[in-house]
């Protein structure tokens, strides 16, 4: 699974993009967040305020209960401030 980070989520994780092998139990976005938080301190810090994180699956906004099956790319980022 290809994972991308933007804005302060990217800065906290320390990379723009990474490929992660999903453990068997990881089915949803919420499962993936739990998994990422367990990886190291940077990931834990990035996802500390879990409510402040938005998710896109293959470039479409989704909620945390979205199923990861079939997705190629997951992106995590703060609330948008464009416009």
């Amino acid at each position, binding site marked *: 699974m290809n994972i991308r980070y933007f*804005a302060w989520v990217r800065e906290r994780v320390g990379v723009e993009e990474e490929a992660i092998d999903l453990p068997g139990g990881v089915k949803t976005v919420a499962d993936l967040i739990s998994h990422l938080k367990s990886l190291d301190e940077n990931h834990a810090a990035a996802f500390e305020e879990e409510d402040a994180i938005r998710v896109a699956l293959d470039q479409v906004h989704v909620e945390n209960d979205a199923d990861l099956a079939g997705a190629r790319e997951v992106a995590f980022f*703060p*609330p*948008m*401030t464009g*416009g």
Partner: protein
Amino acid sequence: MTIEPLIKVQLENFGAEAEAARLTTGRKDVGALVSFVGLCRDEAGTLAALELEHYPGMAEAELTRMAEDAIGRWPLTGLTIVHRYGKIAPGENIVLVIAASAHRRAAFEAADFLMDFLKTRAPFWKKEHLASGESSSWVEAKAGDDKDAERWLNTRSGT
């Protein structure tokens, strides 16, 4: 007849008049053209620049989805969205939305709707670089922007 929106996500500045001309030249069915330009503000004089990060690919895709939603809600004759990324100095343009229609209400509402959703759904993030050279910081999303976007949730179509 469904129209095709023009969506651009770009580093360089845009020309609002050239984009407006593209929606009206040689046509006789456009009665109203509403343009919104969002600019980089710095009333306090403390900002060196805004830096806009975006999600390439998704930015274009999400703006296109919003544009198609607007086209489904209002009888538009043309629709253009241009959003810049990269460093933008105070006084410079950030975003352009132009909605064209036979009637003014549709053009106003579509442009207003798009700006509200663009603020809350388009994958762009602003970082402030201060003139003092102090540490830069990410702009926080405003609760008011979510409220503005919610105005449209219970309205399926305008006139």
